[in-house]
């Protein structure tokens, strides 16, 4: 019995000390390092591929132009496994490397929520793409958003549907995850301020195999326009097909996922004629066109918002370091806040002191599978 006891203690001690073995031997280099948490595995792994692609494109462009402060930029990517514990570990692994000066977080709001306490502790700037409006209201000075938040997407969808399409009886459909709930709320709030009625406000759980009850409910409600927040493309695809099959033809303005590459491939004709808000629209500006061309040349796929925001994030971070003339976190922060009228792939960046860089969206239309830029709606308040 004695042996067992000693072994137990030894086992515990070994369990505790073993992690020392990892994390040693971290080289110091003559580069400026940027850490990036991206979903290499898990349900959003495909988005991760686009995201790292966008970020690498920016790194290459900067390095080709001579780098920043005379140094080359180096991107270090960690897998966040598309989960919250995953991104906490990935971020803490990056955060443990003292020579990383800035980070790219996630496009998923829930993951940014998960890493926010650690970001606060570390005190270095983190760029992210999650669009939950609350993220820049946490009182965390180190978070900088590179996509317009959902309060804007909701307002843009409402504004376009009511003022441009002239529809007043709305169906609102949203995923019950963080992204969908926040978006649905933003849309209903924006509709409340315009002269409209909400015929139906419906949530659904991700990875539903069937949307018949939802489609029928929308049909029954008599709504004349649909606004939607879908998280996963396969849900969007199944819904779009069933919507058309069951004969619902009302105009449909969706959140950015409605115009992304995968959704277009999956849903095909079912999405023809729909509108989407897009933070990235290739035709919306010169900077967007330039990014689109570079991305196509590099990866032979069409660019979308998954790749454009990391591109802008790296570019803006590099610009801020250049402007600050230093890699001191506080100075970088001040330099990012000071950035105004910066022409990015996503749009024109005018950072406010909360950390929001963009304040409007593009509206695009799906014309037989081609995404066509329609108009840009910006808000100044």
């Amino acid at each position, binding site marked *: *019995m*004695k*042996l*067992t*006891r*000693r*072994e*137990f*203690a*030894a*086992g*515990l*001690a070994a*369990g*505790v*000390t*073993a*992690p*020392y073995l*990892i*994390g040693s031997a971290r080289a110091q280099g003559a580069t400026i390092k940027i850490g990036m948490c991206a979903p*290499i*595995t898990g349900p959003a*792994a495909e988005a*991760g*591929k686009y995201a790292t692609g966008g970020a690498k494109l920016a790194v290459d462009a900067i390095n080709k132009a001579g780098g920043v402060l005379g140094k080359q930029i180096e991107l270090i*990517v*960690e*897998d966040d496994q598309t*989960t*919250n*514990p995953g991104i*906490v*570990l990935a971020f*803490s*692994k990056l*955060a*443990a490397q003292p020579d990383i000066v800035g980070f790219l977080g996630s496009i998923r*709001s*829930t993951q940014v*929520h*998960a890493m*926010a*306490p*650690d970001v606060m*502790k*570390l005190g270095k700037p983190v760029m992210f793409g999650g669009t*939950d409006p*609350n993220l820049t209201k*946490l009182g965390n000075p180190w978070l900088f958003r590179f996509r317009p938040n959902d309060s804007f997407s909701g307002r843009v969808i409402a504004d376009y549907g009511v003022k441009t399409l002239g529809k007043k009886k709305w169906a609102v459909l949203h995923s*019950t*995850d*963080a992204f969908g*709930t*926040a978006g649905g709320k933003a849309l209903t709030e924006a509709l409340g301020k315009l002269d409209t009625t909400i015929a139906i406000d419906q*949530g659904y*759980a991700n990875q539903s195999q069937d949307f018949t009850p939802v489609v029928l409910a929308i049909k029954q409600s008599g709504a004349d326009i649909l606004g939607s927040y879908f998280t996963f493309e396969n849900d969007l695809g199944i819904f779009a097909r069933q919507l058309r099959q069951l004969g619902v033809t009302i105009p449909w303005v969706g959140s950015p996922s409605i115009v992304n590459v995968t959704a277009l491939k999956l849903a095909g004709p079912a999405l023809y004629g729909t509108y989407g808000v897009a933070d990235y629209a290739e035709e919306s500006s010169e900077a967007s066109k330039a990014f689109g061309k570079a991305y196509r040349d590099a990866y032979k796929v069409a660019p979308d918002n998954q790749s454009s925001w990391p591109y802008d994030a790296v570019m803006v971070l590099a610009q801020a370091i250049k402007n600050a003339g230093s890699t001191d976190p506080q100075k970088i922060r001040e330099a990012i806040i000071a950035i105004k009228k910066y022409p990015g792939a996503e749009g024109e960046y005018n950072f406010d002191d909360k950390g929001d860089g963009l304040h409007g969206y593009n509206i695009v239309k799906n014309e037989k599978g081609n995404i066509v830029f329609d108009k840009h709606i910006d808000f100044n308040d």
Partner: protein
Amino acid sequence: MSAPSENIQPIAVVPRSTPLLIRHAPYFIGAAIVVALAASASFDGYILNILMQATTFAIAVFGLSVVLGLCGQINLAQAAFFGFGAYAVAIGTADYQISYWLCLAAGCVMALLAGALLGMSTLRLGGHYLAMVTISFQQIVTLVMINAIWLTHGPDGVGKIGRPALFQSSQSYLAFSVAMLALVGYFVWHLPQTRLGRAMRAVRDNELAAGVAGIDVFRTKIYAFAICAVLGGLGGGLFAGGFAYVSPDQFSFAESIVFLTMSLLGGVASPIGSAIGTGLLILIPEWLRFLKSVPGLYLAIYGLSVILIIRYMPDGIWGFVTAGLDRFRRKARVPDAGLPLILAPAKTGGEMVLEVTGLAKHFGGLKAVDDVDIAVRRGGVHALIGPNGSGKTTTLNVLSGLYQATAGKVLLDGTDVTTMPPHLRAAAGLGRTFQNIRLFRSMSALENVVIGAERPGNTLIGKGSEAELTLRAMSALSFVGLGPRANELISSFSYGHQRLIEIARALAANPTLLLLDEPAAGLNSSEKLELHELLKRIAAQGLTILIIDHDMTLVSEAAQHITVLNFGRRIADGESMAVLRHPDVVSAYLGTD
């Protein structure tokens, strides 16, 4: 020590053992060192997060080692219980500014209640059913976490979770969590040697035998399940404080599978195994991050390793290691042979110890036992015989509560036990053995008999301390001649000796009536002689025996009274020699044309 004379109650000399806390001092010293290390070593944030995750997960996995390792029940919802604790701390501290300690306690209580309720509704089913119910429970909990936004904030999760004022820094909080882990580890490590732990192991090894030995099988399973849930809740509560943010996807079915794999990988039988498994499954994916260039590759390797470990290390890593170490281990000392066995059957009823009237047991249309009366006189050996399929074993199973009687009444020493479950009949003074021996195979002979001695209502074990139980069990083992081999595992005994251990287990309980189900089956002639001698020695102490057997020599020599069954009905009853000459009995055995 000379044997005391028959009529003087022996004063049991109970060897005084050193207090547990002193014997286990090395553990606490080791734990204190680890806690000090966690509090003082300098970790970077990454290592701190990993250690925090490993520590809190390990507590939940300890829970699984209780329910799965000790009690043999599956739980695929440990992440849900983990979530109960985590959300209690998260919502309590972040939304309602309630004290951390209160929230932690509340989380544990909620997990406990949920675990107990879930257990009560389904633990009678076991096996695959239990697996399904726990999966369903897990799914429902996840859906509520996502959709009950007013309470849980839905998929946004809860941030800004508080910690106790004493442990504000991450490092001190880690040290606190490690200290909790050490405490829980001590409890889980010590549990198998306690009464409850032994009961769990007995249930895992053989449910029927456990019930007959006086263990409330259902309640034991619920305790195991509730302990598992509470440890899940505790781990979750600590986890929430450690990471300051929780969201539903951290408590999904996939996480329950991770917990289960951790437990199996390390070795389900011991907390050390759980700790190893937890550490490895948190570290391995981290180590394999270099494989990330190909999405999915490292999880594929993880899946493959699970298959290989299950196949080549069935008892987990720790089981594999201990199997190797066992060869070098010092043999534990065999306890003293104990005093000669005393049997003091209770005598509360009248002349008849067992009165069975109008007993029937029907399976659908089959009347296995029909309208049988048996009266067993106190102090004698009574035999129940009959050809194959005559309903003898069914009768015994009804008597010991394994089957519910369709009709009739069973009085044991004046108490009506007709509707009682097996463990209550055992408490009322019924002991039995099985035709196909039912021992607790993962335990030593001594532990088997200790479980017998622990029977509720046994008056010969004083306050029931460990030492008194051991003494009583050693007396019983010595009585059947196996005292010197007390510490050997069941598998090392011959068939005949296993039968003797089973009888010793029943005798240690000091029953009022002993049911022996074909004790001579499978024994050779010399073993049968020994058995006969043993029965005489038991009967000499005044214990009443009801025996079933085919061996007519044994029956006619040992029994004073015989009841004969055929086709489920009583065809003869009376004094041995007369019954054996009864024409109906003769024709039943020899057949009539």
